[in-house]
């Protein structure tokens, strides 16, 4: 099944500028120093009905996206990863491998409290999903 980013209205409601980037005068759409791609996260479109998930971003994904959450759709983590790249293309490269559409080795999902890098992980509509660095310690 192909996954899609969620619609503009939903995204706008949930993508509050929790990291305070706007407060420092930075543009929400800007070119990444990491990937050189333009962030198109707020111009995504939804072309069909599917289950939306609110993915919480921690660490570098959050800094790249400039926000703590993204809303994307998918029934598995593989679909979710693809949808994240569509929602925020700058994740491709540093976080998600553009060749495979799957997470780099440095990242892991946490689904309902369980750490997983299994792309086949099925998602429930109420699943809590976090995207975090695989290296948890310091």
């Amino acid at each position, binding site marked *: 099944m192909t996954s899609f980013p969620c619609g503009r209205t939903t995204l706008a409601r949930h993508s509050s500028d929790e990291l305070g980037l706007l407060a420092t005068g930075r543009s929400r759409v800007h070119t990444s120093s990491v990937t050189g791609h333009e962030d198109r996260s707020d111009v995504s479109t939804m072309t069909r009905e599917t289950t939306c998930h609110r993915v919480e971003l921690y660490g570098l994904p959050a800094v790249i996206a400039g926000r703590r959450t993204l809303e994307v759709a998918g029934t598995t983590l593989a679909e979710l990863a693809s949808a994240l790249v569509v929602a925020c293309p700058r994740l491709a490269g540093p976080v998600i491998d553009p060749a495979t559409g799957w997470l780099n080795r*440095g990242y892991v999902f946490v689904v309902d409290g369980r750490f997983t890098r299994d792309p086949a992980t099925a998602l429930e509509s109420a699943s809590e999903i976090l995207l975090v660095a695989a*290296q*948890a*310690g310091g």
Partner: protein
Amino acid sequence: MQAIHGRALVVDCSTGTAEPFPIPPAVSAAVLGGAGLASWLLLRFAPPRVDAWAPENPFVLAAGPFIGTGLTTSSKLAIATTSPQTGFIGDSLTSSYLALVLRRTGFDALVVVGRAPRWSVLFVDDDQVRLLPAEHLLGRDPEETAATLRSELGRDIRVAAIGRAGERLVRYAAVVNDGRLAGRTGPGAVLGAKRIKAIAVRGTGRFPAVADRDGVHRAARQLATRSLGPETAKYRELGTVANLAFFSRLGVLPTRNFQAGSFPAAEALSGERLVTQHRADRQACAACTVGCEHHFRTSDGGPATTVRLEYETLFALGSLCGIEDPNVVLRAAALCDRYGMDAISAGGTIAWAMECVERGVPLPGSPDEWPRFGDGASLLRTLEAIGERRGPLGDLLAEGSRRAAAIIGQGSETWAMHVKGLELPGYHPKRLRAMALGFAVTPRGACHNRTSAYEMDFSEDAPASAERIAQATARSEDRSALLDALPLCKFLRHCFDDFFVEAASLVRLVTGLSCDADELQRTGERIVTLKKLFNLRQGWTRSDDTLPSRLLGPNGIDPAELDRLIRAYYRVRGWAADGSIPPERLRDLGLESLLDSVSIGS
């Protein structure tokens, strides 16, 4: 064995005399260097049940065979001494150019005993040793001290120094070099007790030859490339401060003296916010390609302060004390650096005091001076009082949370958050069973660096049975001990597909030892066992392997479950049920013969 000098320099600062000490080749092969060698030398030179303040307490600096080979992140020195906080082994690791110059003196380690008749600088100038007057350096912070000594003795020297906290015997004082702190367990206080303000080293000799020079060069290039991969991206891009918001979300961020696992103001203190609003620059340790050291600047309009900040400092001076303002945390971190104090123990001890105030348990001194949760000014004021041992409050808190609670009483022992006297780092163990076990049993006291058992709690297949948790915790300790012996930075640990196999390949190239993965794992276990042997000789008992009472019970970890985990860990280690080490286990690990000349004591 190649890549070693095979000798240590033993300095008696009571008399100013020094002599080389030959390190038996079997010892070098068995423990490699770094933390392994430092632990063995501590056992060798410390009398049984030595007090941390006693002149006889050795202060050991040890290098490892990888230093100077070009292998990335290998420029680290290990310190071992009797900890003024725990009374057990106090081992710390610090990255610096000092490791490189020490290796070029022709010695693998420096052992300092005695007490100087007056404040001194211990100057190791290749194989010459001098005690220089240090009165003019007293009161100076470690960076100023190093700068002064380099202007006096030459730009080619490197310096490890203590700050005012070490001079005043704050029990968690750090040894500082190149701006990096060896802080945990208080080695700076031991140097202070010896009246050594600084150790200055000039080394102009060659690094000892490696076994396969071309092979090491190839391996170094490969490792450098891998060190820049996605496995270290977190450390390069944000640093360890990235942990804070995520840990709060998981409920494992110690907050208000471990009364909670989530901090409502976590977003304000988050690494993501710091990086976007406070980042100044990024630097790397000596001989490191990763560059995880992130510096942040204040933005509150007060005197500008820029400071390196790690997650542990951020949590200890932030959520643990209920502080929401990142500017306060940055100023507090700078104070810890300036005084030369371990930020985890400083924050942990102040958080204990804050809870005393919250509960109405009086502290010494004026109530106006007492620290309070969320009060940034009181945090900064208290840190200064501790660093100076100023007034009865500063003097009390300079003792650390365990001793301070024993003095104050009134039940405050129950909220003194330490294991063996060492304050807990930034992992609330209530929901982390493997980490809880690691905190309880690691010889150093509560530590996230000697056991990275949290990786099991944060993994896809978090083990459920006590036996599997114990097994994984022990293997994690062994890996950490090996990394500290080579040495290599723990931030590289995920750059290996099979750590012990690939580390064995590196050891063969560097040292020429014919070792395999199994032998290297035994090396790690051997080093952990040496540390435990030191603790046993210092009077360790089974009751020392535990957790603070706050973490046990209906709202925390079931004490019976913790007991099951600890018993399983002892079984995995081959130890007796009371935690002692049977002679046959020492034989299995090849330690019996290495300890011929060492008094194990009872």
